[in-house]
């Protein structure tokens, strides 16, 4: 530990500010509140603050950030590198430092987010022990009020001097280079710092009536609790304030912005939040968290349970920003968890601390947000709404996908949309996408022609396990556009026909004219190694239809299969799953023989933006293909 007088500390900060190769940031006042901002003089620095309006995460994951630029003539490019000026952030409270460490884990899982880490690695964090605590803060209870890691330097105010804990070599070097008269701390000062830290632990006005380790278990017992979430969320304005100010929230939206010439533009990401109404809504109008209570509940679960299961920490550092920014005062985690605790206790339920899961975070390489250029080489209009696009990557490579995976398809200036690859990987050189015109990207895509350029990222998702299915009988059940992802596996199986047992395809659409891949499917009827049964919900009187009439489930009784050897592979509109699964189960099909491909709103495709989440599952990364036995207990799944 070192000691520096306040005068010498002021000189240290001024020396940092003078060095134009650094971007020096500190806590400043803003009205009656505080905010991190660029320092022009040390006199602006307010280390006696209680809490800042926004946490310092805005420097690493800004409110708005360019991911990619594009130029119609040239294609996509990563945004030009920012002046990666090293940033020195002065006055970060311990809870905000812990939050940054949480963000590091989140942005590094599976694949690292280069935009986040480029800034994070160029930063120097100078923390300060809390002097005033906001009345909403409960960082002590979360173990985030005092820390001895995660910083370069940590200051403690000792009246006329600061004690400095050195957390890294970078910190040590910074002092050496810019500070004068830094002394070794005496035992007395070391003691004083210890005392100050103990005082911090007693400052909180917000207190849990239990030990926070039980939060994950409390939540586990409260998901379906009748009326609880409705009651607490009744006043929710769906304003998103509670998540936008949170130092550990990381959800984002991605959009394209063209300039006036419409030839250049950029793709930006901006903060988003799960409390907002359209967060989980997809183009067809389905909203997977349609009500305020379901969205309100999701936030608590995400913080206290889902991320705990995934990373081993409760993703709340107790800063209290959510509580203080919620106008109807319903976002205070302490209040909510206390209410939950007492309600369970009154019902005589015991809640034990959750065992911290053994987690090892896998990460490999960087996320590539820059799409590869690709060309439409064939366009086949299939129905009024669906068109098949055959696409070739301009760099001449194969996509190398697994059946059931998807790509993020970009149309310049309009945006990105996740689309299943509907051709088999056995088809080389090009791949096919079957796209329904529903919203902006898809409508614009439909207007493109052979020779036009699109962007492709991926393949993403897990895809079907074609190996594991070898030797099995396969029962494909597709509803409407659900045929698109199934076709990749179906064609793969046909190309490796001898590796598989029986192959049955049940396919339903609303009316004959909506049938996709009509000719291709018709050809199946001539094969004796495939059983194909189509159905339509109804057939207009003047049209010809020889197949079944009725919803897809009316086909299931028409096929005989051995549930022991058969695997069902199901994809269709959200409402279809429940019915199909019930029917399959009544035919004694074991749960783990049912394989589903699910759809959710997606923005990143790589497990970062939060949009595709079904409870603790990321559809983009953990799916879109799921074994029913694994998700039947996941309440938001079906």
């Amino acid at each position, binding site marked *: 530990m070192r000691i520096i007088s306040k005068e010498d500390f002021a000189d240290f900060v001024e020396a940092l500010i003078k060095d134009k190769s650094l971007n020096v940031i500190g806590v400043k006042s803003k009205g009656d509140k505080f905010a991190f901002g660029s320092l022009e003089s040390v006199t602006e620095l307010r280390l006696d603050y209680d809490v800042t309006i926004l946490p310092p995460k805005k420097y690493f994951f800004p409110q708005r950030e360019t991911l990619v630029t594009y130029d119609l003539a040239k294609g996509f490019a990563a945004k030009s590198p920012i002046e990666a000026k090293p940033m020195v952030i002065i006055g970060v409270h311990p809870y905000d430092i812990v939050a940054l460490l949480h963000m590091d884990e989140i942005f590094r899982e599976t694949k690292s987010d280069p935009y986040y880490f480029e800034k994070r690695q160029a930063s120097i964090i100078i923390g300060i022990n809390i002097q005033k605590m906001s009345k909403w803060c409960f960082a002590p209870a979360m173990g985030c009020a005092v820390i001895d890691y995660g910083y370069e330097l940590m200051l403690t105010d000792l009246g006329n001097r600061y004690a400095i804990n050195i957390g890294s070599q970078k910190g040590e070097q910074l002092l050496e280079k810019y500070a004068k008269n830094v002394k070794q701390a005496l035992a007395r000062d070391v003691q004083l710092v210890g005392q100050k830290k103990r005082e911090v632990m007693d400052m909180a006005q917000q207190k849990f009536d239990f030990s926070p380790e039980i939060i994950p278990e409390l939540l586990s017992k409260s998901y379906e609790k009748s009326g609880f979430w409705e009651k607490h969320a009744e*006043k929710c304005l769906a304003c998103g304030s509670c998540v936008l100010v949170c130092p550990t929230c990381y959800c984002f939206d991605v959009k394209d912005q063209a300039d006036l010439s419409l030839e250049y533009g950029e793709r930006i990401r901006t903060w988003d939040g799960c409390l907002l109404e359209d967060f989980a809504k997809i183009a067809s109008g389905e909203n997977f968290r349609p009500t305020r209570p379901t969205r309100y509940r999701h936030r608590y679960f995400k913080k206290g349970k889902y991320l705990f299961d995934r990373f081993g920490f409760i993703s709340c550092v107790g800063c209290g920003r959510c509580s203080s920014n919620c106008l109807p005062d319903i976002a205070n985690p302490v209040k909510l968890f206390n209410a939950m605790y007492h309600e369970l206790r009154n019902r005589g339920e015991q809640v034990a601390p959750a065992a911290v899961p053994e987690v090892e975070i896998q990460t490999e390489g960087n996320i590539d947000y820059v799409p590869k250029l690709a060309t439409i080489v064939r366009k086949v209009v299939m129905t009024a709404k669906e068109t098949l696009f055959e696409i070739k990557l301009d760099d001449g490579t194969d996509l190398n996908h697994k059946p059931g995976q998807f790509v993020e398809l970009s149309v310049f200036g309009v945006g990105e949309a996740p689309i299943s690859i509907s051709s088999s990987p056995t088809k080389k050189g090009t791949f096919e996408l079957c796209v329904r015109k529903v919203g902006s990207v898809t409508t614009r895509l439909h207007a493109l022609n052979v020779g036009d350029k699109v962007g492709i990222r991926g393949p993403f998702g897990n895809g079907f396990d074609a190996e594991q299915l070898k030797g099995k009988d396969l029962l494909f059940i597709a509803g409407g556009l659900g045929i698109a992802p199934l076709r990749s596996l179906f064609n793969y199986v046909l190309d490796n026909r001898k590796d598989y047992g029986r192959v049955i395809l049940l396919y339903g659409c609303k009316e004959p004219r909506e049938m996709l891949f009509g000719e291709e499917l018709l050809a199946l009827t001539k094969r004796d190694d495939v059983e194909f049964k189509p159905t339509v919900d109804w057939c207009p009187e003047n049209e010809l239809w020889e197949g079944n009439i009725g919803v897809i489930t009316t086909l299931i009784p028409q096929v005989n299969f051995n549930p022991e050897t058969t695997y069902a592979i199901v994809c269709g509109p959200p409402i279809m799953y429940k019915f199909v699964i019930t029917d399959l189960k009544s035919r004694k099909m074991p749960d783990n023989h049912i394989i589903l491909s699910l759809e959710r709103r997606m923005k990143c495709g790589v497990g970062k933006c939060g949009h595709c989440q079904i409870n603790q599952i990321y559809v983009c990364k953990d799916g879109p293909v799921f074994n029913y036995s694994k998700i039947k207990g996941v309440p938001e799944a079906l």
Partner: protein
Amino acid sequence: MKPKVAFFDFAGCEGDQLQIANLEEELLTLLGQVEVVSFREVMKEHSDNYDIAFVEGSCTRLQDEDRLKQIRKNAKIVVAIGSCATIGGINSLKNYQDLDEVRKTVYGDKAYLFDTYAARPIDAIIPVDAYVHGCPIDREEFLSVIKSLLLGKKPDIPNYPVCVECKKNENVCAFERGQFCVGPVTRAGCNSCCVNEGTICWGCRGLVDNPNENSQKEVLIKYGLTVDEAIDKFKLYFGWQERKR
């Protein structure tokens, strides 16, 4: 071929057309992409041959309806610009008064000659394809809507409240400054410009799709407004939308 564009005004102050006329340099670039065939603010000519119609002002008389329907017939895309056209705007304040009274204050003893009814947004009469909200509209947003239309994409009009932008801008909340704000129920898209300037959101962009009005009124009262004052906060811009809900 460049899309042909026309501007029309109904009951409103024409503030929005002024915003557009003021775009100057950007307008010139924009003119490279579109052909303006009718724009009373800056030109004399008029033509009924247009693809995109921008309509300003609210519908306040039965006679307006025919004109609107004709515009709808002529145009491929109808865009409502400014609060009066998108949500009824300030004009709907008068919906709270007795309409006969309004007519008398406005037209004196000739009132019987003028037929007026509750002010309403133009989508109460005809289908509208896109909205440029605001009172007055934000020029950037107007350009962004045009760009979207030219690109064939849905303009990006948020369905979340002003608080979202306000938080991103790290403003001190009006309520913490002792003021009263309807940002939590008002559709964002203005980048919370009024709060950024140190004032409050009055609600000029109208309500979000599913506002929690009761809770918002409770908040206003909790922070010190009387019930009537809280209701007045909602009258300024939400008149038509509230009536419809």
